[in-house]
């Protein structure tokens, strides 16, 4: 192979002679992927992230991270002559004045929503198949860090625009920040430079966090996440006798997996651009510029913040007060404590499960949800808890849709968020056990059939010489 005459013309030889990476490269090309559709959810998240970077870089070229006052004179008549921030004006202009700007902005926004959705679905897949178990606990923890960092990234992204909706969201974020015990007030002043909305310094800080600090952090975490996945390989489902705890069956990266994975990447990008072109999202020119003294009814955040709005709305009315001094303001419970509890439960789960089941072995085989009735039941209960809080985040929309008064909904949901998960736990556990039982019956029937077929064949074989 190593023919000096071909030096510089054979790229494989060129690379290997300079990096000695051929063994590594060959190993990477033959890296095995177990074949199951649910393993692609994480890939969808990864590809949405790539679309986010690509469209985000484009948007950053047009965005003006400044709250300095200016007046709009562009083509959109309803806003003409309106005083607004440079930030808001630049987003209105990139949406309505620059060619393809709206496509890029809407695709960016859709990509963020799809990114978060695929992360959550990926998390559910990993949870319900027990794929977080030893030796993959670190991958799980990094995944959780990715989820919560992405949440913050998405929130900062749409807060940058300084339209009425995002300004309200930022005001709530400020209220939640202030509610953090001990450090909340001073931290709010440190970050905003004064009481909200501050003197405009927060915009550029938010901008650098959104376009550089957090994306760099996300990229690093994604790298670590993928490196850990590759180090221990994927889990796999036991489809037949070849799949065991020690033996992995899969399609190699090249040539089998690569075209599929690339096709998925292009398909994700295609769907995001189609959404960005055809389905309007966050038409900020309709909301108008933000002023702290303006509000609007029926305001809803992006879907992935719905659970926090719901938690803020569900909390009963109280501040923790000692004498004349507030100690823990109300938004802390819904805006900080609730997501931290969710994070803590998810992060601790692999270790808690290990303690409860006493199972400390390595797991390379993914469970079917029914194979772990307690885990599946807990997972569904926990999800239903969060989901109900999420739904209540849109309770004012439910009122508009179904005519049930907000007050009634509040009472119902305050009960339901505790009752439904408890019921879900019992029902799902029962269901898993029934399914397991059905599997056993099916398996025994199959064994009996095989035995019958064997006996029949035996009979035929014996009969033959007689005839």
């Amino acid at each position, binding site marked *: 192979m190593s023919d000096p005459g071909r030096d510089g013309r054979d790229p494989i030889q060129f690379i290997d002679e300079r990096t000695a990476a051929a063994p590594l490269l060959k190993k990477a090309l033959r890296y095995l992927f177990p074949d199951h559709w649910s393993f692609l959810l994480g890939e969808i998240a990864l590809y949405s992230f790539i679309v986010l970077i690509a469209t985000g870089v484009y948007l950053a070229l047009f965005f003006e991270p400044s709250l300095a006052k200016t007046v709009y004179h562009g083509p959109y008549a309803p806003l003409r002559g309106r005083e607004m921030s440079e930030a808001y004006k630049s987003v209105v202009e990139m949406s309505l004045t620059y060619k393809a700007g709206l496509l890029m902005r809407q695709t960016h926004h859709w990509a963020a929503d799809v990114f978060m959705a695929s992360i959550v679905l990926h998390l559910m897949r990993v949870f319900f198949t027990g794929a977080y178990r030893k030796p993959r606990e670190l991958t799980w923890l990094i995944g959780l860090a990715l989820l919560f960092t992405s949440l913050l990234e998405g929130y900062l992204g749409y807060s940058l625009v300084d339209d009425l909706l995002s300004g309200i969201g930022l*005001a709530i974020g400020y209220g939640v920040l202030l509610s953090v015990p001990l450090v909340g007030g001073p931290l709010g002043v440190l970050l905003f430079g004064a009481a909200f909305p501050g003197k405009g310094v927060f915009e550029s800080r938010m901008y650098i966090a959104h376009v550089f600090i957090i994306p760099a952090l996300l990229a690093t975490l994604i790298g670590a996440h993928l490196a850990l996945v590759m180090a221990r390989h994927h889990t796999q489902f036991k489809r037949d006798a070849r799949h065991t705890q*020690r033996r992995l069956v899969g399609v190699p990266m090249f040539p089998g997996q690569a075209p599929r994975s690339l096709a998925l990447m292009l398909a994700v990008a295609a769907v995001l651009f189609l959404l960005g072109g055809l389905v309007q999202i966050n038409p900020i020119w309709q909301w108008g510029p933000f002023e702290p003294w303006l509000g609007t009814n029926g305001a809803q955040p992006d879907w992935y913040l719905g659970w926090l709005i719901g938690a803020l709305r569900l909390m009963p009315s109280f501040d923790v007060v000692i004498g004349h001094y507030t100690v823990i303001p109300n938004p802390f419970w819904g805006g900080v404590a609730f997501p931290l509890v969710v994070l803590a439960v998810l992060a601790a789960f692999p270790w808690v499960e290990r303690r409860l089941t006493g199972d400390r072995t390595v797991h390379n085989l993914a469970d079917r949800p029914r194979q772990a009735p307690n885990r599946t039941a807990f997972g569904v209960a926990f999800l239903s808890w969060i989901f109900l809080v999420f739904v209540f985040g849109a309770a004012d929309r439910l009122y508009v849709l179904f005519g049930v008064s907000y007050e009634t909904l509040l009472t119902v949901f305050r009960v339901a968020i505790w009752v439904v998960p408890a019921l879900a736990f019992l029902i799902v556990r029962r269901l898993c056990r029934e399914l397991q039982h059905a599997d056993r019956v099916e398996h025994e029937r199959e064994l009996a059939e095989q035995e019958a077929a064997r006996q029949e064949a035996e009979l035929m074989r014996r009969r033959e010489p007689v005839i």
Partner: protein
Amino acid sequence: MKLRQGLLAGVTLLYGRRRRRLERERRAEQGRADAEQGRADAEQGRADAEQARAGAEQAGAGQVGAGQAQEAASAAGDGGGGGARTPARIVPPGLPDRRAEYLVVALLALAMLFAVGFIVVYAEYSPAEMPNQLLGVCMGGALGFAALALAVFGRRLVVTEEIEEDYPQENPREQSEIAQLLHESASRITRRRLLLGAGAATGGVLGLAGLTPVLSLGPLWDTAPLDYSPWHRGRRLVDPHGYPLLASEVEEETFYTAFAEGADREDIASVLVVVRLHPSELRLPEGREGWAPYGILAYSKICTHAGCAVALYRKPRFPVVEAKPALVCPCHYSTFNPATGASVIFGPAGRPLPQLPLMIDPSGHLRAAGDFSGRVGPAWWGVREGPPT
């Protein structure tokens, strides 16, 4: 003999399908044996022949058909047998699929067409008339057809192998070697904990020094800016256009937004919501006598829950049967009763909206008679409730 043959024929008829399957399996087995043979001959080693075997198995499983199984397996066998001449195949062979190749090219052509379409649409339309939908369809279509092309390529033109390998195991030997390495490296050090402590302390202090410049972002541990209020006795109320608010202009059953005259309108301590109730309805807390001349009330417009603007006013259409007038925050539906000093009657807010005492000057304009009854906006740890001191 005749009877036996006849019976055999019957059995063959009855069990023909099973026989055919068995035959197929036998032939595949043969192919596998060939591959085994090839592997034995091959210098290239075990892994390569396993690929051949995998290929033969795949063919035997009916994806390509029994005949092709033999073909594939023997091809693999030949490859293995000729080890010195050509290396054994890594990727199992497959049959060409000319139609799939044309299909991929056609899909790629469509992708190019859409990509060109994107450029044409971009160039053709003016910014004002740019059809975002068409742009999205062009870009999405280009990417989508490219995805389809790759999908067809991956499904029909690339051999899909299923390979087995061992999961990576832990390395107890290396683990203990690293432990030993650490232990032995430190064996000549006598004051281990002292050195470690000194090192950690230095790292901490250095880190602190490095982070110090971050404090330039703003004042450290200072909540004084949160206490700021532009209101003092005598300051006039102005409407959003900057005109002083006349008491006679303030009507019942609606609400007004007002600011401190001359103050920054973005200052959340400046903005007020002003309503008017019938003086007989007022049940203000003790010590607020005279704060609401002619039933005109002024409260901070910033919700004490999470800082949104209290931008809704519930105005009963049938006051006898419906709930009393209320100030409502649209974010989390904290609801305040203006008649009772904006006490919380619904929602998550933990304390009332701060009230601003009002007075009317000789020219009939509304003026503040003092500062707010409490802190404006969302609360924080340690904030003192009640009037500012």
